[in-house]
Structures are given as structure tokens and as C-alpha cells.
């Protein structure tokens, strides 16, 4: 790795985040009591099927939630490099603007279509850079060439219009814009969807380079588990608005604990794998207006215990915490009661006592 900086220190700390939507039929909790940590130079994957709340979660973290959605509880603490910690919930517009693009940037879903069609690519870079950081406006052309080179695009791309580029090239241009001010954290939502397969590989490579060569942290949100297998250090799987398992990528793929995650991993066909029948998961994901009582997965779970239909399982650490963030496994399931302290807040305090929470 060619970056410098403290690997492993907490960069982003989400605690008990809840986002609700007002609908004609009542209030729906799209994100319910979600806690998540992202460390420096770490790639965290957020996985889950459609409707699980992962896009709502990322919008909330970026403070982009719009009515009829509302953040109703929780905190989001950012610990930027060389700056004071910022509490994003309740931050003023001014504070948010100084954080966006400089410390946290965003590559939204379908973003290859969000380039301005009537401006050249280079112009749009200049726009974004000068808007968020007027001081660095000098040597823009050089900087733009450097950024394009980082993502594998030639310098000539700056003089082209978006419609002259292919989908994959546009996606990489957006990624280059997102890292223009060297943020600590880049959040990418479905960065490989709707692209051809060979382009997907290049995008995955590009994203990995952001961490390997520039030391940035990444949060990659996608339902495609294969992308997580290739990219993530750690994966948090969401179901029905909650995180059900949060563990290292190898643990998630090779020994998943939560029944939903186990069945999900088991439902992925592989080229060259055995030809025996795979099982999917019966039933369908519940709607936010009708979450089941107790564990939200229990109606579809083959191993449900009696308490699963009445008591919501809490996120617990399985196995003794050893202070190494990457290898700890957390799961919210009655089949896996905690061996150590059961609440996530105190567990993370135990695991990283140097990082005090900013409240």
C-alpha cells in the first residue's frame, strides 16, 4: 500500500440511525436503529436486496434525506483527518458544505447519467472543484489530468462532452470528480449496475485503487454479492431496515451466521461450481408498513425459535472481541447469543478504547 496515515482509526461512526417516511397509511421506518463504523483506509460493503433500506441509509449519512423522509433518531459522527470531529445530524448548511466533497463525497446510483450534457467534462470538474474549494483553483488543468489518469482515463477526455463517452468512461469520470478534493470517504451506490461486464471489472479495479493508492475509505452499496467479494474488507448485510450481520468479508462468505445471509450466499450460482440445485429463500421481503413482530426475518426462517416472533434480536458480537476491527463478527440473531457484552455501543468502546464518542 502506498498511502500514509493511521490505518484502523475510526473515520465515520453511525449510531442508532432511524429514518422514517410519512405515507398515507402511516409512518414507515425505512432505516431502523442502524449502527455502523467505517475506519480509515477500509472498504465497507453494504449489501441487501431491494427495499432493505441501504440507499435510504446512504442518503441519510450524506444528509440528503428529503421529505417525505425524515431522520428521526441517531447520530452520525465524522472524524476527518486533520480537522475537528463533526456531528452531521443537526449540522448547519455551512458546516455540511465544508464537509461535502472535501471529506465525504458521493457517487450516486446511475451517476453516469448525471453529467451535464452541455458542458465539457473538464469544465464540470472545474465547476465542482472551485465550488467546494476555491483555494485550490490554481493549476486546475494539471490537477484534472492527474485525476483522470488515476481512474485510467486519458487527459483528452477533459475536452470531450459526456455523450461522446461510453457508460463506463462516464462512471469513471464521476469517480474522478468525487475524489477531486481528496476526501477521506467516498460513498458509492450501485457503481457497477447497468454497465457491461468487462467495464464492471475496470470500475471495481478503479475503486480498489482509491484505497490502495490513495488511502481513502470506501462505502460500497450494492445488492450484487460478487462485487462485495471482490472489493470489500467488511460487509454489513441489511434486511428490512436493520443490519443483520456485520463481519469480515471472508466470514460473511465462508461462515455466515445469520440465516438470511446464509441463504443469500447459498443462492448465488457460480460458473464452474457444482451443478446441484441451489435453494433460494421462500417468501418475500416485508414492506416497511408491515414489519413482522420480533425478528423481521422470522416468517421466512427455517430455524426460527419461539422467541424469534416476539423479541427483536440485538446486534451482538460472537466470539471474544479482540480489538481488531476487521475480524470481529457481529450478528443480530437469537441463534447466536453474544458471548461478550451484548450491545454494540459498549462493544465498540471495548474494542477501540482510544476513540471516544463525541456526544
Amino acid at each position, binding site marked *: 500500500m502506498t498511502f500514509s496515515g493511521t490505518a484502523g482509526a475510526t473515520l465515520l461512526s453511525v449510531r442508532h440511525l432511524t429514518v422514517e417516511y410519512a405515507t398515507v397509511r402511516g409512518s414507515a421506518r425505512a432505516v431502523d436503529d442502524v449502527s455502523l463504523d467505517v475506519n480509515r483506509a477500509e472498504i465497507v460493503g453494504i449489501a441487501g436486496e431491494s427495499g432493505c433500506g441501504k440507499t435510504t441509509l446512504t442518503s441519510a449519512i450524506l444528509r440528503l434525506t428529503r421529505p417525505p423522509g425524515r431522520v428521526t433518531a441517531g447520530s452520525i459522527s465524522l472524524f476527518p483527518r486533520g480537522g475537528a470531529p463533526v456531528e452531521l445530524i443537526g449540522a448547519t448548511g455551512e458546516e455540511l458544505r465544508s464537509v461535502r466533497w472535501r471529506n465525504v463525497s458521493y457517487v450516486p446510483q446511475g451517476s453516469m447519467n448525471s453529467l451535464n450534457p452541455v458542458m465539457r467534462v473538464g469544465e464540470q470538474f472545474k465547476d465542482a472543484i472551485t465550488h467546494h474549494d476555491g483555494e485550490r483553483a490554481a493549476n486546475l488543468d494539471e490537477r484534472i489530468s492527474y485525476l483522470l489518469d488515476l481512474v485510467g482515463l486519458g487527459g483528452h477526455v477533459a475536452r470531450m462532452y459526456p455523450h461522446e463517452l461510453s457508460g463506463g468512461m462516464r462512471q469513471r469520470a464521476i469517480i474522478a470528480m468525487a475524489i477531486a478534493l481528496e476526501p477521506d470517504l467516498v460513498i458509492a451506490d450501485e457503481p457497477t449496475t447497468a454497465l457491461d461486464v468487462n467495464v464492471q*471489472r475496470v470500475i*471495481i479495479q478503479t475503486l480498489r485503487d482509491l484505497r490502495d493508492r490513495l488511502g481513502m475509505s470506501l462505502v460500497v452499496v450494492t445488492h450484487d454479492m460478487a*462485487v462485495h*467479494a471482490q472489493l470489500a474488507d467488511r460487509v454489513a448485510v441489511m434486511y428490512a431496515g436493520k443490519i443483520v450481520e456485520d463481519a469480515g468479508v471472508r466470514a460473511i462468505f465462508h461462515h455466515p451466521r445469520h440465516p438470511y445471509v446464509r441463504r443469500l450466499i447459498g443462492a448465488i*450460482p457460480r460458473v464452474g461450481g457444482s451443478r*446441484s440445485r441451489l435453494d433460494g*429463500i421462500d417468501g418475500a421481503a416485508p414492506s416497511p408498513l408491515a414489519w413482522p413482530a420480533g425478528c423481521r426475518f422470522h416468517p421466512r426462517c427455517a430455524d426460527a425459535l419461539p422467541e424469534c416472533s416476539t423479541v427483536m434480536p440485538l446486534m451482538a458480537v460472537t466470539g471474544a472481541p479482540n480489538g481488531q476491527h476487521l475480524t470481529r463478527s457481529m450478528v443480530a440473531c437469537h441463534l447466536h447469543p453474544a458471548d461478550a457484552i451484548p450491545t454494540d455501543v459498549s462493544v465498540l468502546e471495548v474494542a477501540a478504547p482510544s476513540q471516544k464518542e463525541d456526544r
Partner: protein
Amino acid sequence: MTSIPTPASTTSSADAGTREAASARHLRMEAVTHSFRGAAYRHLGGELVAVDDVSMSLASNPPQIVTLVGESGSGKSTVARMLLGLLKPSAGRVTFDGDDIYQLSPQGRSAFRRAVQAVFQDPYGIFNPFFRAERVLWKAVDRFGMARNRADALAKIEKSLGAVQLRPTDVLGRYPHQLSGGQRQRIMLARAHLLQPAFIVADEPVSMLDAAVRVHFLNILLDFRTQYGMSTLFITHDLSNAFYVGGHLLVMSRGRIVERGSTDDVLMRPAHPYTQLLLASLPSSDPDVRWTDRMTATEQTTAKPSPGRSRCLFAERCPHVMDRCWHDVPPTYAVQGEPSAGTGVETGAVHLGPGADVTADEQSHSVACFLYDPAKRTSPPPDSLSGKT
């Protein structure tokens, strides 16, 4: 009026031979080409050739699954529409039991429709939002005279819903927006079960479904083949799904079929550099198997006009491109020294039986690439992108 063979009994049976001994029906494309013309294609010279001299064949007896793999823009959806009688090709014929489907009499058309059905990609768009979801089933029963009276029709509908693991109470009486994507796609399968066509053309049927549900759907398609004797043309961009489904495989790129053979042959021993590229780009779902080498992007921008179509269309991106690739359309060559379809598979596996899925026309593994020209070859062709043999 052609007589329609009665559907096989619906008792579960691994052997499709319980079907009445009807002669095999065939759905074929014969040298089909289709171009779209119009002002929108000015930058391509006024026409977009979506399908370029494609031939393929599906047989109903023994029932088979043929997968057509291609990326967006390859022409695979155009192929689906032409096979379903929705789009008349600019050149070539689409035939059903030897008759051109675009020249049929009304009775012939009716028989064709009864025997060739579809599953589409978009589980929402397939339902008319004005009506209840079950209407698609009732319309099928009505149109093809599947039941004697209303009670009989309801019984058959409930049975078909059960066959795709849907509870009638969950579905009947509901509107499409009240059902999940998986449920809606299953209703389409229930419709196929109801009609028991000889052929199903499934155009990207699982790409808009969640991963957990996809496998169920694919399993039902496989069951349709073994239990009810329906042959399926499965169109997808996802190679993992193609592998899971097994059977016969055609790889399509920019309107042409570049490689075909059994699924095992094509995916485990890919011959065409494009197929090799697709496989190399597929992320494995095993975190211990990560790419160690780097791939450079080889995309075209529209700034450079692409030369015409009298050449191999993969030349721009091919690591083994030769001079002749730019001047002639590569014909189809057999891939030599390959084991024939059916070997190398676990015995007792569900999907393949020895030679059962391969039609007489297309038994061998073949590829449209000059690297396999037996006359000119000096060294064995590369078996991977890196050029190592």
C-alpha cells in the same frame, strides 16, 4: 388446422418420455438479419444492424434449454421479439415446424401462439395496471379454450399457481402493485404452466429479481423441462445463470453469434476471445479468489467512427487480432479436440443428460474466429486472454 399434442401429464417425472409420442416441433431462425433505420441512427450511417445473419434452432422433443448470452446492445432482445412473432425480420425467415411465422393463416397463427409463449424481463410492465393481476391467467384460459366452465378454469388456475409455489389466496383478487416482483414473475410462469406450450422464450426473466428469488425462478424453468417437457430459450447477460441452467449455449455480440456449444464447453473451455473476456470479467463470489492482474479498459468513444461491418466486430478489442480480421467476416469453424457435450459432468446431475440437450444441427462446439481456421493455423489457439496456450 394443425393438431396440437395434448400436454404431458402433470405428475412429476424425471423422464420427459412420458409425453405422448409427438414428432418434434421446431422453432428456427434461418439466416435472419434485422436492421433498424431512421434519423436516430445517423451517426451509424442511417441504419443499426441489430441482428446479423443469425441461425439457431430449438426442438421440443427431447425438450431442451438453450441459453443465449449477450451484453446490452448485442441484439438478443431483438432475437426474442422476432421469435415471438412481434417483429418481422428485414431478411431471413423465422419458422415454426417449417412454416414462416410471418406468413401464417389465422388458424396457423393461433396454433403458433398456443405453442410458443414468453416470459419477459419487467415484472411490473407485463401487467396492465388497470386490471387485477390474475387477468393474465383468465385471458389465457379464455383465448385458448382451456376450460369447460368458470369453475374448471378457476381450478386450473389455482393448480398452476400452486405449481410455481404461489398461494392462490396471496394472489387472487390483488392488483399488480400489491404484489412483489418475484410474485409477479411467478404468475407469468404460472401462465406458462397453464398453457403448456412447446416453447418458452424467456427474455432476461430474472435480471430484475432479487438474488434470493432468482434461483427459485431458474429451478422452475428447469422443472418445466423435466416435468412438462417444455423447451426454453433463456436469454440473459449473466454467465452464472447460464452456467446454472446448463444445456446449450450461444454467445452473441453486436448482432452476431460468435460461439456456440454445450454450456460446459463454452464456459469451461471458451474459444472466442470475446467469451474469454466475458469470463475474465466475471467477479467470482469468493473473496479468496480475487483478480491479481489488471485489465485495461478497451471501450470505444463515439468520437471515432467505427469502420463497416465486413470484418470481425471484435477486432478493436481483441488481443490476438490479425490483419485478416479487419477485412473479412469470420466464418464458423469447429473447435477441434474438444470432448463432446455431456462428458465431464457429474452423473446423476439434474440438468444434463448425455447429448440430450443438443440438436442435430449444433452438436459440436463451434466458433466464428479466424484463430480457429484449420487451414491457416500454425500454433494452437490461445485458451485465455493472456495468450498463453
